[in-house]
């Protein structure tokens, strides 16, 4: 039973940041701007917020500290994403180039600043994790469910799920969502009905930046005690999850959990009955999540299609 609880809890640690960042990807791509800089934005968000936690350690702790850190991560991601928005919207730049540049910039910047401001030129930023909720009052006592979702938990998990719900509503139930999607499919049509395509695209990119920044923080907090200017390529995995989820929030949720579960199983196989006796090398287990994803994709991609105008700079005059 403990193992089962563990698998579910650990799955959250993989899935929630992937979910949040992939949803960010959905917003930017649905608005027509591709953002391969999600990884860099995660790094930037994690960097500033963890630096903040590091600095505030002693004077603050617990959920209030985490909430402020979340705010900082979101704002950092948003500000950083403006660089991408400016290049790809105002300057009509190749969005892959701009994204690649930001992906290169973020870790270099994080290390550079950390070394400049920390004693002894240390690049890692350590933090004390005071954010774990061992057991959510009341809910944690519910049999099964409590063990799965309300013990050894983080508020970020619930924030992530809340973001999913909000994303679904925003994309499909609001004026903003309708307009954003129009800009990603047919910006000329949007323009001709008086929608400011540039503004909407900015919004999409900035939302993705905020969510990616948050995702960076959410990724680091439960799984380490320091930040080392990397999110282990999870920004790219989030991109993959977004495509896997066919640019639709609920499918993204499925994709994130599928991948997260695979990752957990592949990492925890040594204590999972059946798997631990197979005598298969750990390298094979490590490959499993990726192979499984490819197989699922092979069966589910036939009708998958990216937003039509994604990655194409919007130019009023072009036809």
């Amino acid at each position, binding site marked *: 039973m403990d193992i089962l609880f563990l698998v579910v809890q650990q799955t959250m640690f993989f899935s929630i940041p992937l979910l949040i960042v992939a949803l960010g990807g959905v917003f930017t791509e649905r608005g027509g701007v591709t953002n391969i800089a999600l990884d860099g934005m995660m790094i930037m968000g994690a960097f500033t917020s963890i630096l903040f936690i590091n600095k505030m350690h002693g004077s603050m702790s617990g959920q209030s500290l985490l909430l402020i850190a979340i705010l900082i991560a979101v704002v950092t991601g948003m500000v950083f994403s403006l660089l991408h928005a400016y290049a790809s919207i105002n300057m009509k730049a190749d969005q892959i180039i701009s994204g690649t540049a930001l992906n290169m910039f973020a870790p270099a910047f994080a290390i550079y600043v950390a070394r400049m401001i920390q004693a002894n030129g240390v690049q890692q930023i350590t933090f004390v994790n005071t954010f774990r909720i061992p057991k959510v009052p009341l809910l944690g006592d519910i049999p099964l469910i409590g063990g799965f979702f309300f013990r050894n938990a983080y508020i970020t998990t619930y924030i992530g799920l809340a973001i999913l719900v909000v994303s679904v*509503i925003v994309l499909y*139930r*609001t*004026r*903003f969502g*309708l*307009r954003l*999607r*129009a800009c990603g*499919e*047919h910006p*000329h*049509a*949007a*323009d*001709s*009905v*008086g*929608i400011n395509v540039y503004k909407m695209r900015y919004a999409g990119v900035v939302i993705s930046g905020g969510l990616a920044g948050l995702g960076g923080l959410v990724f680091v907090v439960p799984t380490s005690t320091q930040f080392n200017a990397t999110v282990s390529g999870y920004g790219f995995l989030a991109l993959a999850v977004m495509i896997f989820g066919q640019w639709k929030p609920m499918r993204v949720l499925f994709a994130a959990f599928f991948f997260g579960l695979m990752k957990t199983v592949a990492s925890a196989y040594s204590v999972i009955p059946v798997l631990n006796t197979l005598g298969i090398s750990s390298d094979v287990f490590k490959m499993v999540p990726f192979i499984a994803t490819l197989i699922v994709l092979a069966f589910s991609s036939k009708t998958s299609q990216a937003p*039509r105008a994604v990655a194409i700079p919007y130019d*009023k005059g072009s*036809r």
Partner: protein
Amino acid sequence: MDYIIEMLNITKEFPGIIANDDITLQLKRGEIHALLGENGAGKSTLMSVLFGLYQPEKGTIKKEGKTVRINNPNDANTLGIGMVHQHFKLVHNFTVLQNIILGVETTKHGFLKMEEARERVMELSERYGLFIDPDAEIQDITVGMQQRVEILKMLYRDNEILIFDEPTAVLTPQEIEELMKIMRELSEEGKSILFITHKLNEIKAVADRCTVLRKGKLIGTIDVEATSKEEMSEMMVGRRVEFAVEKGEAHLGEPAFEVRELTVGDKHHAKKKVKDVSFTVKKGEIVCIAGIDGNGQSELVYAITGLMPIEKGQILLDGKDITHATVRKRNRDGMSHIPEDRHKHGLVLDFNLAENLVLKNYFCPDFQHRGFLKFDKIYEYADCLIDRFDIRSGEGLTTPARSMSGGNQQKAIVAREIDQDPDILIAVQPTRGLDVGAIEYIHKKLVAQRDAGKAVLLISLELEEVMNVSDRILVIYEGEIVGDLDPKTTTFQELGLYMSGSKRKERGEAV
């Protein structure tokens, strides 16, 4: 005078071209005002200026006598100006309803309130007989219905000035008829309409006045009642245009092309797109497949040309079975294809003109040696085609196809396909969106092809073209051939009945 809109001395330049040169256009309240001009004359540009998509370098726009600034479509909307664009501006994976309300959504705290909108849309739809399915996605509906969606979009916004940019280019005769009726109703209600078309019949049918442009300049505004079609076309082109296609008797030869019991399925439905279609095209004959859009013409052509798999049947070219041949093999065996969608199939927009002109034969010994392209030969050949087919573009053979005008893109495709000297030329709507001069030219080419003893299969939605050009008409309805008619003995009326499925040949009748 009661002018609702006045565009005074408008000048709009694009790099290297003055699209509108000092043009004045005055629209009376409640009138239908046609705008006529060759391809590239500047009609769309002028309307885009009025709609706020472009800012003119010079000139003023007045509404009801007051000078207004229209900086973007939003401003236009506020002034009650709506536009149906030449190329529909609809989001393909949105529903009809979503497309209609986009930009003017009714919301409560930012949340969409679709029910109210739906009621209003259905009400409008009923009032004007603009039948639509509000929940269908744009990508699943016919062009005709898309057109209705565009019109509903304008009506939903309560616009009083309606701009129609070539709305009829993609419609069937019935749909055109319907549209004319709606336009008349709208003008009777007091709405003012600007109507762009290349078809003089339509102007004659609905317009009160007509402004003619040529090469960006204003030629004049005339009273439609008092002007003949010939006079109008002369104003537009600067010379006389032949309307009837001059063609002599057909000299029929051996069967060149044969289709036997061809059936094409549908990915989504059990219903077949094409059902047991059989016909023959003889050498020296132009056979036309007429029908309302969406009755299986596209699928039939895709199946014949190898772009779509078939379920059953047989295709013979010059007696040889090519049912399962590759596209390349069909082309080499003498099949040419002017496709329906020039941007999807006809051209590689990122290649230049020359590269596009050899798209079907870059691999021939003339143009390559051991896998290396012979660019001098390619350019020579392209120059020759550009010359012969009068393909106009900014930078000659190195012009990126993307930056060419639609008409010239079409000419490039026609040039490429006809120059293959095909045994069977499959031409799908070869003149869509072209001006009369260009249409005349392409029709002549089709007839010349026939007179050289080649077979031509024409697929067209335009009755005029069908009647003028073809030697034999096959009518397609819901994937079946329901009529085999002789244009000389058939009336428009009768053809229309076949096309709408009200009349059909007896089963077993020979085709």
